[in-house]
């Protein structure tokens, strides 16, 4: 019986091709819009997630802050209030995975006839792990390099490309501030960070070397920033608190005195960025769904017209034994077929235009099986929802009235 009804629905759709096509167009546009919006929204989410994963997870930075000594007030531009011993003490705290004191600044690098200004980061080996840096060529420096302040450097991909061009950088000597440094490794590429800065445009050297040879700080062992990685996201708030009390104790800050440092939860910032894109993605989908709704109303409209036009046919069918259920099924099937066919075309067009957007703008797009399934399900749902009222109207016609209808 179902195959007969499908055949009839097909005939009915073919009877007025232009009208069927226009009705379908509403669904095509609706589904197409949902698919492309979801592809763009999920693409944005994916891009943000990628960036977050390159940043390193569960990160906290402790920055040296303002302090007042003998009436001299100073912000973070003054003498740094943090030191390596603070970092070593933090490493002992419960829930802390990695601690890396860092000192960074911009310096010019020279290799042969090339030069390149970049961010130079002086730090300790745990930094690499906490920021999720990998070494693609060569090896990392060790704690003993930090202790003896060796002049070794790890360079980012952008630096390698600009300074060494075609040469293999590993084992080569470059100059930072007139000091020769041996490149011992090239860092794996991470791309842009959330602010759009190129994370690969960097050089990492041992902290002690940076302070003695590159930045020449008068406060040896003092740092402006300590990078802390917690063992888990759950441990992060606890770690933040215990760092605060540890530092207040170590810095001998009395009750009522302000902190001479700041802590900043990088992961929280990243999370809120992810949340923003998620919200945007949902919003895009919601706006696109409105066109799906409009498409559904179009189906309902045309089905109502169709029921009126085919009143006599309905009467004939009832006279030869169609039950209400049969008539209902027939018209519902027709509405669902229109919406599914429209949905299918919409999916194809939506995916094609998403790919086009990707090709033309380089925007990241993600077409997930789930979003395709959702679009299909919603379209079928729209067909049932908006097809039900006209179909019920048809099924509840009085056979005598319907037969008499001209």
């Amino acid at each position: 019986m179902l195959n007969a009804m499908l055949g009839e629905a097909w005939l009915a759709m073919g009877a007025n091709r232009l009208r069927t096509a226009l009705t379908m167009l509403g669904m095509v546009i609706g589904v197409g819009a949902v698919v492309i919006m979801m592809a763009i929204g999920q693409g944005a989410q994916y891009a943000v997630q990628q960036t977050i994963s390159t940043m390193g997870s569960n990160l906290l930075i402790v920055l040296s802050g303002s302090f007042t000594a003998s009436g001299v007030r100073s912000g973070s531009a003054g003498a740094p209030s943090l030191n390596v011993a603070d970092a070593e003490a933090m490493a002992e705290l419960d829930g802390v995975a990695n601690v890396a004191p860092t000192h960074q600044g911009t310096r010019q690098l020279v290799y042969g006839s090339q030069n390149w200004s970049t961010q130079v980061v002086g730090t300790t080996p745990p930094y690499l792990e906490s920021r999720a840096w990998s070494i693609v060529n060569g090896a990392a420096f060790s704690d003993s390099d930090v202790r003896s302040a060796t002049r070794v450097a790890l360079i980012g991909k952008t630096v390698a490309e600009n300074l060494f061009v075609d040469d293999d950088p590993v084992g080569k000597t470059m100059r930072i501030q007139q000091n020769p440094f041996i490149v011992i490794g090239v860092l794996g590429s991470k791309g842009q960070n959330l602010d759009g800065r190129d994370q690969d445009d960097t050089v990492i050297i041992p902290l002690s070397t940076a302070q003695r040879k590159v930045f020449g700080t008068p406060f040896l062992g003092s740092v402006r920033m300590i990078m802390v990685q917690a063992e888990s996201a759950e441990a992060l708030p606890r770690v933040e608190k215990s760092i605060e009390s540890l530092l207040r104790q170590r810095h001998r800050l009395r009750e009522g005195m302000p902190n001479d440092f700041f802590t900043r939860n990088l992961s929280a910032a990243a999370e809120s960025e992810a949340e923003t894109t998620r919200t945007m993605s949902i919003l895009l989908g919601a706006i696109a769904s409105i066109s799906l709704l409009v498409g559904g109303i179009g189906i309902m409209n045309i089905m109502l017209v169709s029921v009126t036009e085919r009143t006599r046919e309905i009467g004939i069918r009832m006279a030869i034994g169609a039950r209400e259920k049969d008539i209902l099924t027939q018209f519902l099937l027709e509405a669902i077929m229109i919406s599914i066919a429209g949905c299918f075309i919409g999916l194809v067009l939506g995916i094609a235009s998403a790919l086009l957007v990707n090709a033309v703008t380089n925007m990241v797009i993600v077409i997930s099986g789930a979003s395709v399934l959702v679009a299909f399900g919603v379209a079928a749902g729209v067909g049932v929802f908006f097809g039900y009222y006209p179909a019920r109207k048809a099924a509840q016609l009085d056979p005598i009235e319907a037969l008499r209808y001209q």
Partner: protein
Amino acid sequence: MGDAVIRVVGLGKSYETAAGLFPALRGVDLTILPGEYIAIMGPSGSGKSTFMNLLGCLDTPTCGDYFLDGRNVAHLDKDALAKLRNLTLGFVFQGFNLLPRMTLQDNVALPLVYAGSSQQERREAARVMLDKVGLGQYADSLPARISGGQQQRVAIARALVNNPQLILADEPTGNLDSHTSEEIMRLFGKLNAEGITIVLVTHEPDIAAHAKRQVRFLDGQIVSDQLSGTIRA
């Protein structure tokens, strides 16, 4: 009387109108036996159409009982009535009422769709019936391709396809010329000779004369019920 195809007792039907309750049918009693060929006559407004709708299970009576094939169907629900229309009755209308988008074969097979037959059964039964009314060669044509008389023969084939207890024909020749009307009436005569019970509604006396029994309606009541010997000869 237990084996009557149709037995109606005190059948009445009233309609709500602006002027109040209008009794279209007032206490009709009638028994139709298997194999009968009966014409229901009367001017418009006589209640014959209302009676036909009740006999055809398209409507339910206000009062009285209607035994179809021994079973009281006066107060069955819509689905049960639909089943009776599908399996026990066969309709033939004045306007042929074929579905224009379907081939003749599909038109004839349509009652079988609602009876739940398989595609194979539908095709075979429709072929047999189309052959029976002499239109087997047009099985794959659309109704618009054949003449009115041929369309009515297809409609008769459709009415017969579920082997019903009786055929209800409502002004079957109303849209046909006299020559084609004769053809259709000959077909009905032939079917009746094979034992099929036929109820014919008409206002034309010469059409009614083909039937073996004439029942005349006036003002919602039966005013005459007579057998005619003429056609049998």
